[in-house]
C-alpha cells in the first residue's frame, strides 16, 4: 500500500503552531523561575499570542483548505482567531497580579490558557466534525483544569467538577450526533455533508435530523443556551475570575464559530428544520438569562446570567441566516470580548484575597472612592446593556436589524424588550457605585501595570468599536463571504 502524504501546509497552521510552541516553552521556562514569581511566563505567553496574531494577519484574505480538508483557514476562522487571542491576552494580563495575590502563580496556568486557545482555533477553523470535536475537547479539558485551578478553594473545586461532569455528558451527546451524521451522510467532512445534502433526494432521514439535533445540543451546551445553560452560573461563580472572563468570551466565541460553520454552512439545506428550534432556544435563552440576572447578588453570577442572555442575542443572528446576521455574530462577539473582559477585569481589581468583594452591595460608593475604576465599570456596563455610543449598542443594533431584514420581526421585538430589561440590572451596578454610600471599608486598589494595560485596551476597544464601528463591520463582512 502506498502512503500518499497529503499536502502539508504548515503555514496555514501558523497561529496554532506558534501558540503550541509558546505553551511548551512556557512550561519549560516556568520550571526555572523562582516560586511565586512566574510573571515572566505570562509575558512569554503574551509574546506567543502576539506572534500568533501577526501570523493570523498574514493569512488574512487567502482562504485555503489544508490537511486533506481537515481545516479551512479562511477569514472567518481568522476573525475568530483574533477574538480568541484578545480574550487570551487580556485574561493573561489580568491574571498576573491576581494569581500572585492568591498565591497561585504557576506557569502551567498560562500554558493551559494557550492550549485552550489552540483548541478554540481548531474549532473555528475545523472543516471536519472530528477536527471540531478534538478542538472542543482540547479547549474543554484545559478549561476544566483552569476552572479548578485554585485547588484549595471549595468553590473552584466545585466549579471544575460541575463543568467536567456536565461537559463530558454533553460531549457524549455531541459525539452521538456526529456518529449519526456520519451514518446518515457517510462523511464527517463539512463540505462533504453539504454536498451530500444538496444532492440528497430525501432530507427527512430521521437519523440525519436526530444527528443534527444532537449536534445542536453539544454546541448549545458550550454557548450556554437554555436549557443547556445550567452549568454556567455555578461554574462562572466558582472559577478564578480571570478564567471566568476567558470562558465567557473565548469558549462562547469558539462554540459559536463551530456552531455557525456547521449549521450555516454544512447543514444549510436543513435550515428550515433547525431554524424554528433555534428561534425558540434564542427566545428562551435571552429571556431566562435576563430575568434571572435581575435577582442575583453576586456580580460574577449576575454576569454569568448576562452571558447566557448575550448568547441568546447572538443566536438571533443565526436565526436570521443571512450574511448580515452572520457578520453580526462576528461583530457582536468582538464587541462582547472587550466589554465583558473589561467588566471582569474591574471585578478582579476590586477584589482581594479573602475579600473578594463580589457582592453587588460591595460596589456601593465605589464611584466616590475610585472614580477612575467606577468610570471604566460604567462604560462596560453601558456597553453590555447596549446603550450608545458603545460597542454593545452597535452589535445589538446590527443583529436586530439582520433579524428584521430576514423577516423575524417578532424575534427582534423580543430581543429589544429583553435588552431593555437587561438595562435594569446593569444599571443597578452603576447606581450602586454612584448613588449609594459605601457600606464597608476597603484597603485600596492595587493597580498593576498589566491590569492597567488590560483595562485600557478593553475600554478603548469598547468605545472605539462603538464610535467607529465601520472598519470592524467591514472585517466581519469580509469574514463571512464564504457563507451563503
Amino acid at each position: 500500500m502506498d502512503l500518499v502524504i497529503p499536502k502539508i501546509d504548515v503555514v496555514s497552521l501558523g497561529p496554532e503552531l506558534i501558540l503550541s510552541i509558546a505553551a511548551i516553552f512556557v512550561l519549560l521556562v516556568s520550571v526555572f523561575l523562582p516560586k511565586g514569581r512566574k510573571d515572566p511566563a505570562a509575558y512569554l505567553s503574551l509574546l506567543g499570542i502576539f506572534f500568533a496574531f501577526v501570523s493570523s494577519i498574514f493569512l488574512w484574505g487567502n482562504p485555503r483548505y489544508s490537511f486533506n480538508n481537515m481545516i479551512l483557514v479562511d477569514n472567518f476562522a481568522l476573525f475568530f482567531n483574533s477574538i480568541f487571542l484578545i480574550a487570551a491576552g487580556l485574561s493573561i494580563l489580568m491574571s498576573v497580579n491576581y494569581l500572585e495575590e492568591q498565591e497561585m502563580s504557576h506557569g502551567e496556568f498560562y500554558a493551559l490558557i494557550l492550549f485552550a486557545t489552540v483548541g478554540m482555533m481548531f474549532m473555528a477553523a475545523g472543516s471536519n466534525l472530528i477536527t471540531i470535536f478534538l478542538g472542543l475537547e482540547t479547549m474543554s479539558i484545559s478549561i476544566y483544569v483552569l476552572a479548578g485551578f485554585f485547588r484549595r478553594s471549595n468553590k473552584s473545586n466545585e466549579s471544575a467538577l460541575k463543568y467536567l461532569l456536565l461537559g463530558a455528558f454533553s460531549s457524549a451527546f455531541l459525539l452521538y450526533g456526529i456518529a449519526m451524521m456520519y451514518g446518515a451522510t457517510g462523511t464527517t467532512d463539512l463540505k462533504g455533508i453539504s454536498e451530500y445534502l444538496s444532492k440528497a433526494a430525501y432530507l427527512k432521514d430521521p437519523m440525519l435530523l436526530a444527528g443534527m439535533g444532537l449536534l445542536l445540543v453539544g454546541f448549545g451546551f458550550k454557548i450556554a443556551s437554555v436549557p443547556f445553560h445550567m452549568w454556567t452560573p455555578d461554574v462562572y461563580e466558582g472559577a478564578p475570575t480571570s478564567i471566568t472572563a476567558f470562558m465567557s468570551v473565548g469558549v462562547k466565541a469558539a462554540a459559536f464559530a463551530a456552531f455557525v460553520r456547521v449549521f450555516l454552512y454544512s447543514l444549510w439545506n436543513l435550515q428550515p428544520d433547525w431554524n424554528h428550534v433555534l428561534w425558540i432556544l434564542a427566545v428562551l435563552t435571552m429571556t431566562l438569562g435576563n430575568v434571572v440576572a435581575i435577582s442575583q447578588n453576586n456580580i460574577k453570577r449576575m454576569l454569568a446570567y448576562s452571558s447566557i442572555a448575550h448568547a441568546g442575542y447572538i443566536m438571533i443572528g443565526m436565526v436570521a441566516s443571512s450574511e448580515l446576521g452572520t457578520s453580526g455574530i462576528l461583530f457582536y462577539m468582538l464587541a462582547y470580548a472587550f466589554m465583558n473582559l473589561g467588566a471582569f477585569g474591574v471585578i478582579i481589581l476590586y477584589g482581594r484575597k479573602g475579600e473578594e468583594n463580589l457582592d453587588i452591595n460591595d460596589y456601593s460608593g465605589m464611584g466616590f472612592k475610585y472614580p477612575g475604576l467606577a468610570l471604566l465599570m460604567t462604560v462596560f456596563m453601558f456597553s453590555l446593556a447596549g446603550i450608545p455610543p458603545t460597542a454593545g449598542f452597535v452589535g445589538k443594533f446590527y443583529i436586530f436589524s439582520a433579524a428584521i431584514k430576514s423577516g423575524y420581526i417578532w424575534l427582534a421585538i423580543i430581543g429589544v424588550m429583553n435588552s431593555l430589561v437587561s438595562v435594569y440590572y446593569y444599571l443597578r451596578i452603576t447606581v450602586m457605585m454612584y448613588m449609594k454610600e459605601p457600606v464597608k471599608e476597603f484597603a485600596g486598589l492595587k493597580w498593576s501595570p498589566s491590569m492597567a494595560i488590560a483595562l485600557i485596551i478593553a475600554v478603548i476597544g469598547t468605545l472605539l468599536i462603538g464610535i467607529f464601528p465601520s472598519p470592524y463591520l467591514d472585517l466581519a463582512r469580509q469574514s463571512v463571504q464564504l457563507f451563503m
Partner: protein
Amino acid sequence: MLDYVWLVPLFPIIGAIINGIFGTKLSKKTVGVVACGVIGLSFLVSVLVFFSLLQLPPESRSFEKIIYTWIAAGDLKTTVGFLVDPLSMIMMLTVSGVSFLIHIYSVGYMHDDEGFKRYFTYLNLFVFSMLVLVCANNFLMMFVGWEGVGLCSYLLIGFWYQRKEPADAGKKAFVVNRIGDYGFLLAMMLIFVTFGTLNFKEVFNIAHYNFQVGSMVITAITLLLFVGATGKSAQIPLYTWLPDAMEGPTPVSALIHAATMVTAGVYMVVRCNVLFTLAPISLTVVAIIGVVTAVFTASIALAANDIKRVLAYSTISQLGYMFLACGVGAFSAGIFHLMTHAFFKALLFLGAGSVMHAMAGELDMRKMGALKSHMPRTYWTFLIATLAIAGIFPFAGFFSKDEILWNAFQKNTVLWVLGAGAALMTAFYMFRAVFMTFHGESRVDEEVAKHLHESPSVMTSPLVVLAILSAIGGFVGIPIIKGANVFHDFLAPVTGEHLAGSAKVTLTNLAYASSTAVSSGEAVHHPVGLEVLMMAISLAIALGGLGLAYYMYIKNPSLPKRLAEKFKLLYHLICNKYFVDEIYDFLFVNPIKRGSEILWTFFDVRVVDGMVNGSGRFVEFGSSVLKRIQTGYVQNYALSILVGIGAIIAYFLFM
C-alpha cells in the same frame, strides 16, 4: 458658519469632560465658569449658525453636515451627521439659550451643595445629549441623544440620592421611559425595514413619493414613534414619572423636566411630520391623547398644593397642547408653543426655586402667602410668566396658545372645547398659585419668616431675561397680519405648511396638502373676522380663569364675613352663611377637589403606577422563582440538558 454646526454639541461635552475628570481639583468658581462658559459658547455658535442659515433662500434652508459614516451594515448606512434646518435651528437656539440661563442660575442655587461639580458635569452632559438629539440628521443619532437625555435626567432626578424619594423617583422615570424607548426602537427598526435607511431626508423623501396616505406601515411607524414620544414627553399613559421627577434640584426641573427634554417628543413628532401627515389615524390619536392629557392633568393641578407639583402637572398639560397642535396638523404652532413654553415654564420653575430658596425648601403653598413684598423681582417675573402661560395678551403664551386653539377649532369643535377648557383651568390654577404664594395673608412659619430674602442677582438676572422673553417672545408669531407670522414662515419649509397668505407649496407639503386639502383650503379662506373672534374668546377664557382665581383666593377670605354681616342685619339668619359656604363648597370646590383627588389617587396611583410597578414586580418575582430552578445539584442540571434533548429530538421526529 454652517459647516461648524458640530461645535454646538461639542462645547458642552468638553465641559462635561473637564468637570468630570478634573472637577475634584478645580474650585467651585472654575467649575461654574467652565460649565456656563461652554454652554455660552454653544449658544453663540448657534446664533452664528442661525444667521448664516438666514442668508440662504427659504427653500434651500436645509444643510447636512456629515462627520463620518458610523454604522454601515449591508445597505444600511448611518452617519454621524448634523442637520441644520429651521426646525433644528429653533431647537438649538432654545435649548442652548435656556440652558445657558439655567446654568447661570444654578451657580447660585447649587452653591452650597456638596455635589456642585457632579451637578454641572451631569448638566453639561445633558445639554450635549439634547443638542445631539435636536441636531441629528438620522433616527439613530437622534436615538443616541434620546437615550443620553434620559440617562442624564435619571441621574439628575436621583441627584440627592441620600434621600429615598429621589432615588425612587429616578427609578420610576427610568422604567417608564424604557417603555417609551421601546416604542422608538421598534419604530426605528420598522423604518429601516421599510425605507432601508434611517436618514431623515431620505426617509421623508421616500415616504413622500412612494407611500399613500393611510398606509398601514406608516401608521404603525408613527404610532410607535408616538409611544416613544409619550414616554419622553410624559403623556397619558406614561406621564406619571414627571411629577415625581420634581424630587430633583429645581433648576433641573426647569431645564430638563419643563423646558427641554420633555419637549423632545414634540420635536420628534414635528420632525417626522411628513410621516404623520401620511397617517391620519396616528394624527387623530396624537390629537386625542394630547387634548385628553391637557385637560386631565390640568384638572389635577387645580387641587395640588405643592408648588412644584402644580408646575409639573401644568407642564404635562402644556405638552398635551403641543401634541394637540401636532395632531391637528399645525406643526409650526406646536413648535411655537414649545418655544414660548420653554421661556415661561423655565421662568416659573426658576421662580419657584427662588421662592424655595427663600423659604428654606418649603414647597407647600398653604404655608406661603404675601411673599410679594419680600421678593419683588421674583414676584414680578413670576407674574409675567403666569400671564404668559395663562394666555393673556400680549404675552408670549397668548399667541402660541391661540394659534393652537384656532387650528383645533378648524379641525374639530370638540377638540377646541376641550382645549379651551384646559386653558381655563390653566389660567385658574396658575393664578391660584400666584395668589396663594405672593398675595393674601402670610401663612409662613415664623422661623422661616425671619429669613425671607430676595435671591442673589446671579439667580434673579436669568429670571429677568426669561421674563423679557416670556413677555415679548410671542411677537415673532403674530397671526392674521400677512407676513407678520415670521415664525410660521420660517418653519414652513420643514413643516410643509403654507406660508401665511401665500399659496406657495413646498415639496414636502404635497402629501399634507392632499391629505388635508379641504381643511387647509378653508384655513386660507376663512374670514379674518372669525379668527379675531376666536382670539377674543380665548383671551376671555384666560381672563375668566384669572377672575375666578381672584374671586376664590383673594376675595373669598373676606367675602363670607361681609356677606354674613349683611344677612344678619336683614334676616338674622346666621346659618345662611353656612348655607352659602356649603353650596359653594358643594357646587364648586369639592367636586373639583374630589374629582381631581379621585383621579389622582385612583387613576394615577393605582392604575398607571400600579401597571408600571406591577410589571417591575412581576419580573422581579419571576426572577426570584426562576432562580430556584438552579438548585446547585449537578444532576438536576444534567436532567435539564436531557429534557432539552428530548424536546429537540421529539420536535425533529414528529414535526
